[in-house]
């Protein structure tokens, strides 16, 4: 019997033909490829930014880091700091004048500015913006300073006088951080339905969890700016995918990652990582003074001597940053090099102080935000350093929200690791607004009338009196060490080398007025 010849149902020739046919069909159809960037307008001027967390319009007025990429795109401030001199420069306010012994400030506003809706910008919008900041439910970190403004009087459409309950040396910090919002659409800001400002880009669309898009403001008051035709901010919650989006050209810019997150891009000359010059990431070890023996200053000083700050800077921040014993960056008027170098790494001195404070062999918990990889590395280095002194550190990693909740409610354990901002602004903002340093109800539970007096003096005076207050604050901070300052760094901006003209404010709000691609 002869079996019939069986023909293969699927043979090599058919598979190859099908593959070639599909390829030819795609090629001849001129298929746009999303992966190569030809799919969207990236090449024609839309800057694509990627970040780990979604934007938070509801926290827009509370300086939420998730909004740093877009705040200065949509909104303009009244004034902007010169990064070198920390002197205010005109923005929506063109001139200002103090009177009434520092209790009244009169601002002259630009007259050629319109909101994205087309309505002219007036002094009434400044009134609405300050009132919004004063509202506790808006959670502005400068609400304390805004609360000093007791009276707002418009003098025509473009002039306004601010009456203060007492002089405030840091009022221009408020102007730097406060977005000037359109009073007519302010109610829709929290929901992200409308974001109307006078900035270089107009809000187009927000898809929660996905992206937010902006288009060029053709009526921007800075003539000829911006250059980009639009900006897209995408949310990519997974770190590896975020970095991959940069490597594949799907994103042009990723702000705010730590150097350890960026190791995957090391040696790739298509990208550059820049540290902002603001030094507003000041890393510190917080001490809970309610937990013995942290209630003893000698014990806290021993910890300060025992930490090898240079190693933390070199390992965790790849050498970028300044080791310091005080919160102030080098650009701050409160900075003094001799005081910043006070707690040089000195294990012998640390052991002496520990012996005097009776703290050897003790066990303490150290909490940190495990959502930030850098803090985990830092916590381990501190654990090692303090272990060498005979202080047994138990690490307590906490998820970001839990850490934040415990921080704001004062329920952290003996020690915690975190970073703070504000020190790059007027020193008064740190001791009145930042939770670790507030002279009333700070996180550590530290109280001292002398500290409070120095903080108030720093807040309400200028010139020599203010500088004396800064020195007094530094002296108390060094002596008391309820906050052990370690390393000051800027935020990172990792971008394709095709991006030019990138800038930022003193609070690291992204500034894209002059940005170009290609």
């Amino acid at each position: 019997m002869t079996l019939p010849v069986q023909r293969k149902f699927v043979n090599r020739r058919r598979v190859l033909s099908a593959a070639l046919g599909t390829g030819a069909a795609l090629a001849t159809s001129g298929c746009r490829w999303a992966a190569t960037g030809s799919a969207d307008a990236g090449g024609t001027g839309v800057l694509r930014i990627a970040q780990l967390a979604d934007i938070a319009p509801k926290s827009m007025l509370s300086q939420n880091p998730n909004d740093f990429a877009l705040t200065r795109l949509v909104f303009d401030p009244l004034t902007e700091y010169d990064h070198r001199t920390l002197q205010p420069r005109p923005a929506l306010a063109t001139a200002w004048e103090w009177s009434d012994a520092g209790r009244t400030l009169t601002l002259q506003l630009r007259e050629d500015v319109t909101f994205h809706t087309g309505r002219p910008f007036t002094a009434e919008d400044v009134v609405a913006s300050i009132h919004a900041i004063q509202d506790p439910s808006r959670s502005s970190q400068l609400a304390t300073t805004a609360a000093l403004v007791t009276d707002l009087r418009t003098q025509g459409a473009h002039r306004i006088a601010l009456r203060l309950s007492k002089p405030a040396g840091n009022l221009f910090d408020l102007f730097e951080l406060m977005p000037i919002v359109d009073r007519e659409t302010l109610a829709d800001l929290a929901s992200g339905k409308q974001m109307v400002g006078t900035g270089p880009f107009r809000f187009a669309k927000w898809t929660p969890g996905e992206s937010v898009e902006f288009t060029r403001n053709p009526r921007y008051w800075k003539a000829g700016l911006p250059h980009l035709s639009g900006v897209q901010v995408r949310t990519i919650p997974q770190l590896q995918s975020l970095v991959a989006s940069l490597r594949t050209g799907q994103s042009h810019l990723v702000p705010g990652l730590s150097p350890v997150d960026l190791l995957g891009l090391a040696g790739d000359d298509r990208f550059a990582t820049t540290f902002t010059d603001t030094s507003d990431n000041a890393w510190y070890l917080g001490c809970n003074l309610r937990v013995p023996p942290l209630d003893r200053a000698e014990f806290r000083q021993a910890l300060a001597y025992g930490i090898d700050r240079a190693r933390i800077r070199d390992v965790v921040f790849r050498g970028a940053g300044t080791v310091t014993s005080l919160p102030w960056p080098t650009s701050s008027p409160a900075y003094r090099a001799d005081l910043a170098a006070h707690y040089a790494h000195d294990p012998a001195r640390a052991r002496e102080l520990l012996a005097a404070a009776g703290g050897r062999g003790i066990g303490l918990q150290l909490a940190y935000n495990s959502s930030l990889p850098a803090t985990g590395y830092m916590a381990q280095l501190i654990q090692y350093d303090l272990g060498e002194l005979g202080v047994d550190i138990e690490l307590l990693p906490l998820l970001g929200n839990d850490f934040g909740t415990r921080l704001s409610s004062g329920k952290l354990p003996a020690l915690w690791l975190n970073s703070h901002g504000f020190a790059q602004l007027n020193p008064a903002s740190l001791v009145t607004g930042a939770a670790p340093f507030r002279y009333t109800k700070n996180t550590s539970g530290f109280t001292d009338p002398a500290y409070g007096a120095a903080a108030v003096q720093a807040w309400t005076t200028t010139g020599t009196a203010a500088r004396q207050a800064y020195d007094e604050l530094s002296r108390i901070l060094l002596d008391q060490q309820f906050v052990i300052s370690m390393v000051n760094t800027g935020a990172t901006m990792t971008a394709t080398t095709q991006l030019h003209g990138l800038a930022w404010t003193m609070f690291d709000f992204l500034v894209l007025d002059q940005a170009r691609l290609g």
Partner: protein
Amino acid sequence: MLRYALRRTPSMLLTLFLASVAIFGLTRLVPGSTVTAIAGSNATPATIQAITRDLGLDRPLPEQYWRWLHGLLTGDLQRSAVLDQPIGQLIARGLGATVELTVAAAVLAALLAFALGVLGATSRRAFVRGAARSVMTFALAVPPYVSGTALIVVFGVLLPVFPVGGRISPLQDPELGWQYLVLPALCLALPVSAVLGRFLADGLDQAFTEDFTRTATALGVRRARLITVHALPNALPPVLTVAGIQLGNLLAGSAIVEALFAWPGVGQLLIQAITNHDYLLVQDLLLIAVTAFLVLQLLTDLGQAGLDQRTRLGGRS
């Protein structure tokens, strides 16, 4: 059948009620707070107090629970505390993306399973059969987190063929939409295709040992016809049963894949809501998931009864 469905309703409602209590309690037990997500960790006590009051979180827990339940019963899912968006809209948008991903993954899984299963059982070359079975074992063993990262590295970075994250709806822009869909759908489909492929290969192996296939071979029936007409119809029914179960796994597994590929579905929405302690959004999403499983369970029971008349739903023997 309708009577059976109606009889199951009280127990389903009781299950839903108990689930709602458990979900509400568990969200409140998780360390952290919605207020922190809104106000930040630097908030003053006055700010915390103001936001807590605005959100109604200062009210007693039973009252908060009742307000949530009342909203659900009246069809009002309320607004997300953190995103300040209607929860119904957020879920509808996320669900659309998740269904799109799941359907694409199911289609890919079916195609892959068919190809691997048939090759693994019918190829005349032992090497091909071995390779197909090895691929299935590998796809089953590697978790989506690892396979997804590998797909990103290979097809996104080394060979920049497909975008590594994000979504454009194929309905809005089909030309680009499918490209965004390929990698996450493939990542999600791989383990499912391995399970289905193995069932199919085993089913075909079994079919080839049966008398009717041996007879057909002896009669000179072409191999292609032998496979498609005789073996496959006998091998497919158990595969279809398993496919039904695997569809649930696709939905459950989409959360990880969505996070990896920045796919804005309900999985990513749930993770974001949990991270932010967005209580109402978490509660609504979890309760919807419980409801979906209860309905699927009921439909499965009804379907089984429809297919097999020997099954008397709830009847007396």
